[in-house]
């Protein structure tokens, strides 16, 4: 049996295990270990396993993941979401659809210190849904805006998904963070535009809210300064090379913890629950990381990545056509599974395909450009039926809005995301401008 055949059997087994609901990490470990054994025999594998887990976990670079996750937990607990939404609302609320815009803006700002779409959508929903109901916003606009707003966090740094992608393709995390900023802001603007077009056609779905006085606006800005400061210090520090990402994450987690404590929201019980929530996600990610390590060794031994790369390069197909096909696969997968797991599973296969194609840019640029476009498509999966995890979370906070209305509500935001992807594909400098400038 040729090694490529073996790789294909491995992939089929992996898909089979996933379909029967074996956790992603376990499926990867099982196939990776069996494949490695099939190609090299038992002894090398058993020998490798002695230290594999330690060396996979003992990484200075990867320590950003638990630190940023803990930062997100502290931020969620500190009630920052309320002040961010409040600040956005005093500036936008008096417009038609303005309260929904404030919810999206609050999501974007919160995503900037949290980095998890689910946590962003969840915490923002708790604050914004009652306000949206008070101003009699239609259920589909209110829940759609929040579900979509939550996805902004995947791109606006620090984002855990971005870090995972950078690890998977061995890209520079700092450059990935830089590349994500403009597309992230573009996403925010696109979502706001989607709301204003929506309320233009259906004015009754987003009534005007109260106009805030200048004093109220000033007050709201004063309340948000610690959050803004934290974001500027962490991201600014990383962008300008004052910190490496781990240092930025440590400063962020420390700052968010101090902030939550200062606001009187972090007692011992709160600290324990933050730790436990961060532990749960960290454990999930690192176990997948371990599985990906074994799967990658197996795949590298079969040489299937090179084969795919050559196949793509020699296929004669237009590179952009292949890119679009890959993105369609992501859109499909994104509807079925967790975004972080999906990145780990697909990148070892998809990235070599991309790397074999000629888009007229150096490999470092290609990594950033492909990554940003991919993550936007992946985030779309969070709000697409049938799974749409963000939609489920919002639904939990707005039980009187039927799920169908929420899925209808996210449609304009999905369209806005589609326009953004098209723009980013056609004009790579939108993504690459900032990393090149700061180089």
């Amino acid at each position, binding site marked *: 049996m040729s090694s490529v055949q073996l790789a294909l059997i491995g992939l089929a087994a992996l898909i089979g295990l996933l379909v*029967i609901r074996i*956790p*992603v990490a376990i499926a990867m470990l099982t196939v990776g270990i069996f494949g490695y054994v099939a190609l090299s025999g038992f002894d090398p594998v058993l020998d490798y*396993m002695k230290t594999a887990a330690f060396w996979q*976990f003992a990484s200075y670079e*990867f320590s950003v993941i638990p630190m940023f996750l803990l930062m997100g937990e502290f931020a969620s607990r500190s009630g920052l979401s309320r002040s961010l939404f409040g600040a956005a609302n005093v500036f936008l609320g008096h417009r038609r659809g303005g309260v929904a815009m404030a919810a999206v803006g609050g999501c974007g700002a919160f995503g900037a210190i949290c980095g998890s779409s689910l946590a962003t959508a969840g915490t923002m929903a708790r604050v914004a849904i009652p306000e949206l109901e008070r101003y009699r916003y239609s259920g589909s606009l209110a829940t759609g805006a929040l579900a979509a707003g939550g996805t902004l966090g995947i791109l606006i740094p620090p984002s855990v998904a971005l870090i995972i992608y950078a690890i998977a393709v061995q890209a520079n995390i700092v450059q990935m963070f830089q590349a994500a900023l403009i597309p992230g802001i573009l996403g925010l603007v696109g979502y706001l535009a989607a709301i204003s077009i929506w309320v233009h056609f259906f004015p009754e779905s987003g009534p005007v809210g109260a106009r805030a006085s200048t004093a109220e606006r000033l007050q709201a800005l004063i309340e948000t300064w610690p959050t803004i400061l934290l974001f500027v210090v962490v991201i600014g520090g990383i962008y300008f090379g004052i910190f490496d990402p781990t240092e930025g994450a440590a400063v962020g987690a420390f700052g968010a913890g101090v902030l939550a404590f200062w606001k009187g929201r972090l007692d011992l019980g709160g600290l324990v629950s933050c730790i436990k929530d961060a*532990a*749960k996600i960290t*454990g999930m990610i690192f176990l997948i990381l371990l599985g990906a390590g074994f799967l990658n060794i197996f795949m590298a031994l079969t040489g299937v990545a090179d084969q795919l790369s050559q196949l793509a390069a020699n296929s004669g197909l237009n590179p952009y056509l292949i890119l679009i096909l890959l993105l369609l696969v992501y859109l499909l997968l994104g509807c079925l599974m967790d975004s972080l797991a999906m990145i780990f599973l697909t990148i070892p296969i998809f990235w070599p395909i991309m790397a074999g194609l000629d888009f007229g840019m150096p490999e470092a640029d290609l990594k950033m450009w492909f990554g940003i476009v991919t993550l936007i498509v992946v985030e779309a999966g969070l709000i697409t039926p049938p799974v749409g995890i963000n939609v489920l979370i919002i639904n939990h906070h707005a039980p009187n809005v039927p799920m169908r209305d929420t899925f209808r509500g996210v449609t304009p935001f999905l369209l806005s995301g589609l326009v953004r992807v098209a723009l980013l594909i056609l004009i790579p400098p939108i993504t690459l401008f900032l990393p090149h400038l700061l180089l």
Partner: protein
Amino acid sequence: MKGFSKQLHKLSSVFAIAGGTTLIILITLVVTSIIGRAVFSRPVPGDFEIVAVGTAISVFLFLPYCYLQRGNVAVDIFISRMPSWVQRAMDILAAVLFGFIAGLFAWRTVYGFSDTFNNEDISMILGFPLWLAYPFGIASFMLLSVSCFYTAIAALREPDNE
């Protein structure tokens, strides 16, 4: 059986909190190092080595808690539409598979520990012994493996409680 389940959950929580405490110590260490570098031009030497090994320790300690809280993501779209006995069978299969793999890692990590100990592997700058992290790995993989097999047995025995 119930009492044992409670003990497992409690122990995994203790592990997770210990891991989180380790993480917070690392965060504080890094912040101290940055302040040292900025204010006194004296960072904590070799802080990145402590962070790397400390991260491994806290990740090890998180694993059993993550499992018992059903934190390991799976693709739940086909099986959730099957009859409940199929779902239970798949859950048991997943738990047994996970239990074996965790057990395998626990077993191999024991040898990793003895190798690292006997070779006197030390970190590059600070020179502290690397075997320090291994006992956490062994204990966590063991707890993880026991939790998996326990889950499988519990699902077999008390189907209605699932």
